[in-house]
């Protein structure tokens, strides 16, 4: 990929991400208000225009920036300063490997809608995500506060625990796709398989029966690995430390946990980190399980080849690109909404319940899934040989 | 020249089934809480040999009918057991006519004896779980015996050879709570070990010399094909053996065959290693029948026949085998005259009959030897089992002077015992007649053996003695008035069906068994060509001597044998049926000789005084005191420990400071020095 097109994709990516993050505060408020049967986020106004509360994010930012930045005595000043940045940075960096579109040729340039199309894409996200732990851990310790300290211990235990289940739960998917590269996964998920093809294979119906060719299913991760989708989602949400996995914050138990000593924009960074993380989770799940930027039953290549005679090759590619980004966004939004739904539906787990879920339920299930998937792959290979 | 062989994967199941059965019941004994249900034990223990027998019958039938007479070889190669350089020993099984006969005898007679044992051991409560233990051992024996018989090379055969030795030891001492039984088992084991040592030496010598000749192998067919390479090789004897005939150079094969024969003499109870077999009667009677009469003790004969390609090139060894066999036959028969324990009589008769077999093998009449192995297995198993039935009926009384008059109380046992006695005495047309007659005929014609006329005469005399003492046994047990005490008399009873069924089958076999090897001369009387089917079946695989005699000589010799046997019967009838009052007077007249014979010529005492005591004394005085306690315990074991303790306590312990970092420091310095030494040249 040539250097100019990298900037194109970085620009698009920044657009997506930076537009989403502030809006999340509004979405969160609106969603909770909806679920709690009240009217929310309707106070901030500019000259009387409330715009459905969309002005609130702006008000938030102004408030945070202008607030006093406190540093407690006895704090480790350097760590207290850098921790929020360590918390936010991994979330943003991990977006680099998530593709939100395919590769398009226009006016002689290849535009790939993925900033860094790495060979070990998912692994990269795991690695970067594991660094995010420090942001929270050090925050609690650096503040020289016992509540913060307890929060730090909880953070580290919880995040290490769920990293295990996080990695293993999707091994089955890797086994099926045979790649860790997210763009390849997207392309593979465009394909379809015939749901009743086995009838023909075993000779239970005649070869070339028409209705068997009609009933097809896209090879989405969600279809191939339904249970891991939910396990992966659970583990990611636990990594993100939002309700119902917010024991490290636990307002009612340890006041505010690891960021107890933060105020102003540093506190804001933690909030922003969480919201960006929500977007990252949704994007990652979309890319791995929901077919990424592609439409089911409608491969991108056929769209381009259909439109080329109508508008020319360059414009066809542009159209496909725009379509891809929108498809991706819609899927991400649905998943964000789903996460909000969970966040406002469930009460906070007790600490031991969090650990039990990670070690005693998710981990054994993931391991079982690896074995079962392996058996399934062997059976399919054996049958289709 | 190695013949074409046919692969046959069914063979492995013949030995494996008994092994599986033994493993299951053995594992259950070790890990289970209580005995398996009787039904399960019986099904497992009897089912395995019967199934093996069925497989064997099918495979032997296929062998005989589907393959040409000169290429009857089924081989089942499991895996390569040992691979070292050019040398390969496969774990493989061979079914050829020779092993086919043996397999059928072992599995067939073995199955019958398993069935019999169900009845015999049923009320045995001498120790906890004895029933299952007994059958586990018995199945293990079957497995080992089948390994021995089916083994395709000397090493596999040796595994079976040692395995049957172990099982024999375990079963002789089966009622180990009685000290006497345990000692008998040990005696059998030790005497067998002496023979096995010779056998091992023979294997090593053969392997070494074949390797020298460029064919490193222990496999029978390869050895047979290449034995010509060794025919003229000699070994030089050391000076202290100068008294031996043929000094200073012996044929290599003669030496090897003699070593192998030491093993055969141990396993098959020949002079001078026969002493264990009579004591082996301490085991349960089915064991005596199966192991110490029908199968295991014939392993030596089988081995000599199997190695016949080597023996045929070693005339000295052949003569030794023949003479040892003949002497053993006669010697054991004389001991049998004066024994009063029913099983001891049968045991000496077994030793005597085994002598016959070696006599036959020694004159290169291998098929006759195997024929006698087969018929002997039938009638001797029958006799032992019938004796077991008697013993059960008499409440474990084995002394024949306390029996008598059992004919009416145990009619079936009586009938089958009489069949057995007639068969062993060589009365036509019972099976023993044909096999014994064939052996004596071969001996008479074996002009290559020095003194073969004497051998024939000894054989004839043995036949006379055999007929005499067997009928003595028969009359004392079954006729006349009962000499048992009142209580025992009231409880004498015929045995149950589990016992009687095998007896009847074996009786039938003892009657008709001879017709498998009906000599051609007899067959022609009835217009049957090549009626000696066993001989023709075996001929391609054993290097048997072919002899052609006119029918007059053959019938004449048979007549002499028959007359001699009948004379023995007549004498026994006179002394033990009509005029029993003569016996004490006769004994009185030859009292010293009688006592010597009754005490088995005091051979055991001689061995005890000449070998066992000096050896034990030496071990106790020198090996135990000086070598073991002084040298090994004192200097090596305790000395090392004391030295280490002294140095450690005196100096080395101060190096252990408990500071992990000082250890690490030492380690690093050592590593640095090591690196410095490694790169010193650079």
């Amino acid at each position: 990929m040539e250097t100019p097109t990298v900037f194109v994709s970085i620009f698009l990516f920044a657009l997506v991400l930076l537009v989403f993050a502030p809006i999340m505060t509004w979405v969160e408020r609106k969603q909770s208000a909806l679920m709690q049967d009240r009217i929310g986020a309707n106070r901030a106004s500019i000259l009387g225009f409330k715009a459905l509360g969309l002005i609130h994010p702006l008000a938030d930012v102004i408030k945070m920036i202008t607030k006093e930045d406190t540093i407690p005595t006895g704090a480790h000043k350097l760590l207290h300063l850098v921790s929020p940045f360590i918390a936010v940075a991994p979330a943003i960096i991990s977006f680099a490997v998530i593709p939100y579109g395919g590769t398009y040729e226009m006016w002689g340039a290849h535009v790939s809608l993925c900033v860094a199309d790495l060979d070990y894409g998912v692994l990269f996200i795991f690695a970067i995500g594991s660094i995010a732990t420090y942001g929270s851990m050090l925050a609690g310790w650096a503040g020289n506060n016992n509540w913060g300290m307890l929060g730090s211990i909880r953070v580290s235990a919880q995040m290490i625990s769920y990293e295990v289940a996080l990695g293993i739960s999707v091994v089955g998917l890797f086994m099926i796709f045979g790649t860790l590269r997210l763009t390849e996964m997207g392309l593979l998920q465009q394909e379809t398989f015939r749901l009743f093809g086995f009838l023909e294979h075993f000779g239970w119906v005649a070869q070339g029966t028409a209705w068997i060719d009609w009933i097809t299913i896209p090879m989405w991760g969600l279809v191939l690995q339904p249970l891991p989708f939910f396990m992966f989602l659970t583990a990611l949400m636990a990594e993100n430390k939002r309700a119902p996995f917010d024991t490290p914050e636990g307002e009612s138990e340890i006041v505010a946990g690891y960021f107890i000593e933060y105020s102003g924009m540093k506190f804001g960074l933690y909030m922003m980190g969480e919201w960006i993380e929500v977007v990252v989770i949704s994007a990652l799940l979309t890319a791995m399980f929901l077919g990424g930027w592609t439409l089911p039953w409608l491969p991108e290549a056929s769209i381009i080849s259909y439109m080329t005679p109508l508008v020319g090759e360059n414009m066809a590619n542009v159209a496909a690109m725009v379509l891809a980004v929108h498809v991706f966004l819609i899927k991400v939004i649905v998943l964000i909404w789903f996460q909000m739904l969970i966040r406002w539906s469930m009460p906070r787990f007790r600490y031991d319940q969090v650990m039990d879920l990670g070690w005693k339920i998710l981990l054994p299930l993931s391991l079982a899934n690896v074995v079962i998937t392996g058996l399934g792959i062997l059976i399919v290979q054996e049958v289709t040989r | 020249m190695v013949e074409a062989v046919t692969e046959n994967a069914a063979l492995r199941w013949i030995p494996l089934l008994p092994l599986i059965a033994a493993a299951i019941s053995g594992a259950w004994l070790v890990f289970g809480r209580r005995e398996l249900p009787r039904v399960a034990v019986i099904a497992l223990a009897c089912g395995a040999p019967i199934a093996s027998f069925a497989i064997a019958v099918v495979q032997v039938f296929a062998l005989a009918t589907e393959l040409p007479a000169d290429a009857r070889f089924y081989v089942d190669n499991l895996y390569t057991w040992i691979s070292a350089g050019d040398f390969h020993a496969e774990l493989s099984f061979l079914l050829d006519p020779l092993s086919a006969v043996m397999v059928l005898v072992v599995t067939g007679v073995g199955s019958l004896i398993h069935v019999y044992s169900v009845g015999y051991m049923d009320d045995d409560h001498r120790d906890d779980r004895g029933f299952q233990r007994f059958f586990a051992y018995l199945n293990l024996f079957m497995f080992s015996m089948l390994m021995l018989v089916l083994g395709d090379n000397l090493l596999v055969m040796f595994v079976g050879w040692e395995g049957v030795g172990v099982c024999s030891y375990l079963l002789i001492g089966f009622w180990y709570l009685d000290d006497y039984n345990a000692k008998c088992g040990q005696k059998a084991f030790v005497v067998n070990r002496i023979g096995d040592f010779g056998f091992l030496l023979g294997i090593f010598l053969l392997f070494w010399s074949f390797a020298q000749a460029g064919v490193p192998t222990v496999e029978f067919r390869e050895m047979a094909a290449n034995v010509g390479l060794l025919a003229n090789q000699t070994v030089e004897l050391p000076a202290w053996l100068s008294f031996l005939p043929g000094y200073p150079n012996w044929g290599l094969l003669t030496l090897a065959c003699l070593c192998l024969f030491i093993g055969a003499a141990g396993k098959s109870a020949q002079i001078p290693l026969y002493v264990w077999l009579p004591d082996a009667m301490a085991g349960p009677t089915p064991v005596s029948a199966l192991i110490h009469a029908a199968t295991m003790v014939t392993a030596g004969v089988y081995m000599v026949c199997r190695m016949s390609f080597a023996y045929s090139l070693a005339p000295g060894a052949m003569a030794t085998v023949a003479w040892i066999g003949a002497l053993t036959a006669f010697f054991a028969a004389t001991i049998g005259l004066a024994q009063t324990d029913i099983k001891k009589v049968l045991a000496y008769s077994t030793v005597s009959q085994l002598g016959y077999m070696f006599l036959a093998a020694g004159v290169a009449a291998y098929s006759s030897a195997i024929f006698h192995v087969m018929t002997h297995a039938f009638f001797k198993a029958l006799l032992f089992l019938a004796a077991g039935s008697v013993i059960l009926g008499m409440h474990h009384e084995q002394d024949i002077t306390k029996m008598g008059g059992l004919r009416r109380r145990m009619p079936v046992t009586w009938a089958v015992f009489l069949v057995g006695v007639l068969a062993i005495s060589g009365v036509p047309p019972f099976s023993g007649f044909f096999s014994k007659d064939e052996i004596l005929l071969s001996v008479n014609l074996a002009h290559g053996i020095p003194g073969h006329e004497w051998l024939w005469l000894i054989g004839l005399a043995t036949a006379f003695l055999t007929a005499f003492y067997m009928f003595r046994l028969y009359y004392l047990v079954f006729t006349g008035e009962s000499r048992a005490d009142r209580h025992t008399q009231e409880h004498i009873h015929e045995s149950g069906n589990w016992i009687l069924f095998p007896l009847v089958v074996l009786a039938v076999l003892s009657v008709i068994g001879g017709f498998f090897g009906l000599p051609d001369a007899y067959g022609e009387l009835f217009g049957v060509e090549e009626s000696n089917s066993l001989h023709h079946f075996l001929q391609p695989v054993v290097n048997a001597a072919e002899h052609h005699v006119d029918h007059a000589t053959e019938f004449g010799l048979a007549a002499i044998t028959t007359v001699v046997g009948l004379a023995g019967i007549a004498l026994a009838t006179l002394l033990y049926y009509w005029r029993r009052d003569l016996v004490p007077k006769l004994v009185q007249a030859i009292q010293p000789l009688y006592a010597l014979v009754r005490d088995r010529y005091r051979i055991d005492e001689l061995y005890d005084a000449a070998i066992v005591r000096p050896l034990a004394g030496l071990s106790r005085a020198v090996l135990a005191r000086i070598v073991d306690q002084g040298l090994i315990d004192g200097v090596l074991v305790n000395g090392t420990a004391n030295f280490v303790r002294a140095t450690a306590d005196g100096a080395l312990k101060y190096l252990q400071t408990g500071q992990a970092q000082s250890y690490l420091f030492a380690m690093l310095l050592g590593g640095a020095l090591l690196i410095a030494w490694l790169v010193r040249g650079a």
Partner: protein
Amino acid sequence: MGDISPFHFQVVAALIFMIGVLGVLTRRNMIVVFMCIELMLNAANLSLLGFSREIGNDQGQILAFMVMVVAAVEVAVGLAIIISLVRNRDTMDIEDVSQLKW
């Protein structure tokens, strides 16, 4: 400074290894000693990977991977031992734990 060669990596590995040695020998805090051991392991890994790259053979990478597995186990067990020590003896000083001597 010129272009770098695989040899440069070995020098870095040696330096880090020796820093680890220095720490293991001079520090008293058990956890810090433990960290220095990790440094040494990583230096060894770097060396392995350097040689692996130099001769174009991936065996060194496999070995480095296995070292990491072992290191993970070692840390888990070692830290458990340290926790147990601190709970029972209330000390982190490696010199206080010297009962295993004559």
